[in-house]
């Protein structure tokens, strides 16, 4: 037995394929934190028997990278992660297997093979839908227009390291209040129904440091309007991807990978 411990000679096969996933956090599982999701995904990968690649060394870690995770309590239809596999697999088969191994509410929506570009670089902006009681629709609309006409809106967030104050106005590139049917029109899989009359705040934020969250937008609206706006019923990230400043839209971050897959 050697006296100096060296990493055990485990055969750590190299990564031969990288897959990008889009997944959702729905219903009551929106209360999972990002760490909770990470553990759930790692276990699901093992249950599904996927050939995940591991890092070498004393404590090998599965090769999974995450980007731009939604805050605890927020639902999302547009979360992204990348897996390194040690054997090639058909992306759609991986989607089906992984989705079956995850609890309902954490759903794998899309899997594509990664091209060269960095996933994190693709995630420049998000579209959020914040559901609020219909009774407060007028107040939210008024607060939204005040916020948009204000140059800088400094909000406070309680973090592990104390209070942090930062401007959100620079990140908010769109903020509109709609009736729910306007927002959900034409949506094929409207996964959520609304049990009470409500209005929807559509917010597009560009990602900065820190990334502006729905709670920050709410805090900003309360601050600029001076109104006691009610607690939102739910917040859902609808899109996350590259920001197209000319069209003012959030693009599909997996588009380059899909294109590469087609041409390649």
């Amino acid at each position, binding site marked *: 037995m050697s006296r100096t411990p060296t990493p055990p000679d485990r055969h750590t096969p190299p990564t031969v394929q990288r897959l990008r996933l889009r997944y959702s956090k729905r219903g009551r599982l929106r209360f999972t934190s990002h760490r*909770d999701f990470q553990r759930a995904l790692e276990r699901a990968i*093992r249950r599904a028997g996927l050939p995940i690649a591991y890092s070498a060394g004393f404590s090998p870690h599965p090769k999974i990278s995450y980007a731009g995770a939604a805050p605890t309590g927020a639902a999302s239809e547009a979360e992204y992660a990348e897996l390194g596999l040690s054997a090639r697999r058909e992306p759609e088969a991986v989607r089906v297997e992984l989705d079956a191994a995850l609890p309902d*509410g954490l759903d794998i929506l899309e899997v594509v093979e990664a091209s060269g570009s960095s996933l994190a670089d693709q995630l420049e902006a998000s579209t959020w839908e914040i559901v609020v009681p219909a009774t407060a629709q007028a107040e939210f609309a008024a607060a939204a227009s005040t916020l948009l006409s204000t140059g800088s809106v400094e909000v406070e967030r309680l973090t592990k390291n104390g209070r942090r104050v930062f401007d959100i106005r620079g990140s908010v590139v769109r903020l509109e209040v709609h009736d729910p049917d306007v927002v959900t029109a034409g949506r094929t899989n409207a996964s959520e129904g609304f049990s009470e009359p409500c209005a929807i705040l559509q917010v597009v934020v560009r990602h900065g440091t820190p990334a502006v969250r729905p709670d920050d937008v709410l805090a900003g609206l309360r601050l600029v309007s001076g109104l006691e706006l009610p607690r939102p019923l739910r917040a859902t990230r609808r899109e996350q991807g590259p920001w197209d400043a000319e069209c003012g839209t959030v693009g599909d971050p997996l588009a380059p990978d899909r294109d590469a897959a087609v041409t390649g």
Partner: protein
Amino acid sequence: MPFFTRTRPKVYDDMAVESLFPRLEPLLPLVQKPIQYVGGELNSTVKDWDATRVRWALMYPDAYEVGLPNQGVQILYEVLNERDWILAERTYAVWPDMEKVLREHEIPQFTVDGHRPVGAFDVLGVSFATELGYTNLLTALDLAGIPLEARDRTDEHPIVLAGGHSAFNPEPIADFLDAAVLGDGEEIVLAISEVIREWKDEGCPGGRDELLMRLAASGGVYVPRFYDVEYLPDGRIKRVAPNRSGVPWRVVKHTLMDLDQWPYPKKPLVPLAETVHERFSVEIFRGCTRGCRFCQAGMITRPVRERSITTIGDMVRSGIDASGFEEVGLLSLSSADHSEIGEVAKGLADRYDGSNVSLSLPSTRVDAFNITLANELSRNGRRSGLTFAPEGGSERMRKVINKMVTEEDLIRTVATAYANGWRQVKLYFMCGLPTETDEDVLAIADLARKVIATGREVSGRRDIRCTVSIGGFVPKPHTPFQWAGQAAWETVDERLAKLRKAIRADREYGRAIGLRYHDGQPSVIEGLLSRGDRRVGRVIRAVWAAGGRFDGWSEHFSYDRWVKAAGEALAEEPVDLDWYTIRDRDAAEVLPWDHLDAGLDREWLWEDWQDALDEVEVEDCRWTPCYDCGVCPQMGTEIQIGPTGQKLLPIAAVSHS
């Protein structure tokens, strides 16, 4: 002081009970770690309420992150839910932020499975691994709208039933319990369910009182209200006696004899939230006859009953498949003592070689064989640290507690460990043991020095570390030390301060030795609750009323609150906190748990206590003749150990990555 006015159906009205989740959901963003209240864990069960006849709410009275991995609750949850006529759901202690939210919005204590009100179940079964969960029981009862005191409950309230190791002396919480069960739960929960079903099918004759009477008459369920405690003028107990006919004088513990027939958990719960143990645990045997005199678990779980190597192998395989866990713990009170542990370790290590499944043996004895085992199990992974528990610092102390480890054994063991590439050794000791002196505790520093010196010598390296971890000793019921006066917290703190000073002053070795310990005050309260009688219930209630919650958590525990409550609640009694804790008891004194039968012969326990004082050791009865502790004949049980001679065969389907 029930907080809510409730409109719950009677026990025998099987009306639909609706989920509280719609009311809870909008409030979840207001609390920390909301996922712990959501349920939906992999392998959890939600049944149709109306399709079942007997319904259990199982509670672990600590936070979800501690309670979810609890083996006892997981086993009973699965055993009960396997019967189509029984429904079992889980509930845990809610954190103070959630308690506040629930009170503000008048939402009762709920289960995490169906989010049903705890008050709607037939039984609230609470598993007490430690006495420090007692205040959390009161919070849960109050939030559930169940009267705190059993005598105030009516037919519409659940039967509040305690189990777990602390239930071997449930007297301090006797006023809050309807019933308690001693020992292994697998069979008795089904027997209790049968009694409840029969009683409900008959139309609940005689109400709650008759149900409890039927349970008590079996001899296996303790119903505190059917026993009266009389006291002597000096405060000691005069006697404990049944106050009605048909109730046995002594209530006996339950012993599951064939563990291979009960391979639970089969489908371990896999939480989304982070918990204290992220692994699948397989209990490889139950019971221990090493005879460590401080160890309540070893005394009350006798005799030793092993699971066979093949059952262990099957459980590991199916548990990993069902859970996706990567870490498997082989649990027991002293895992290296399994008669085929070498084969178990080698067989499992072979099976999972090259996979990312890691195996651990959490409880390790001090001998070189353990290093062989640890090497086998760590074939795939890291060799960071090994833990050994000499428990006592000096040879003399170890004789008193019957921990038969010599200094030579320990040094030889650690030398093997360091030579095999293990870089850190953790040593576990206790402070405040009976007859202990300053010298016994300072001997810990000597041992640690020798460990480092040995480690440096055999490894040729300077970066050897040894962590010394010290717990405060608390005398427990049903052990030879049940008569011992507990050391005062001041004494414990003083000795630990001297030890720390001695280690810090050592220039050669001091920096290689880490010392971890807690202050002595919480042990005093644990001592009060461990050996208390029914009068202590008033103290618990007063502490709870003053805001006491989560007493097992240092950030929530308040010694002063307990001292104040004890002073006030016991003011009219001839007893006080010291009387319960630091006082020696004599052979004749009636102890609060004497009517509860753990199988141990009282005279044998006393002799073993005298042997302890004389520094006389006793061997393990698995390998030496019986020394008449009383358990096997008393309980109609016997030691169940191998070897079976079986081997684990490789399995084809182990996933490699």
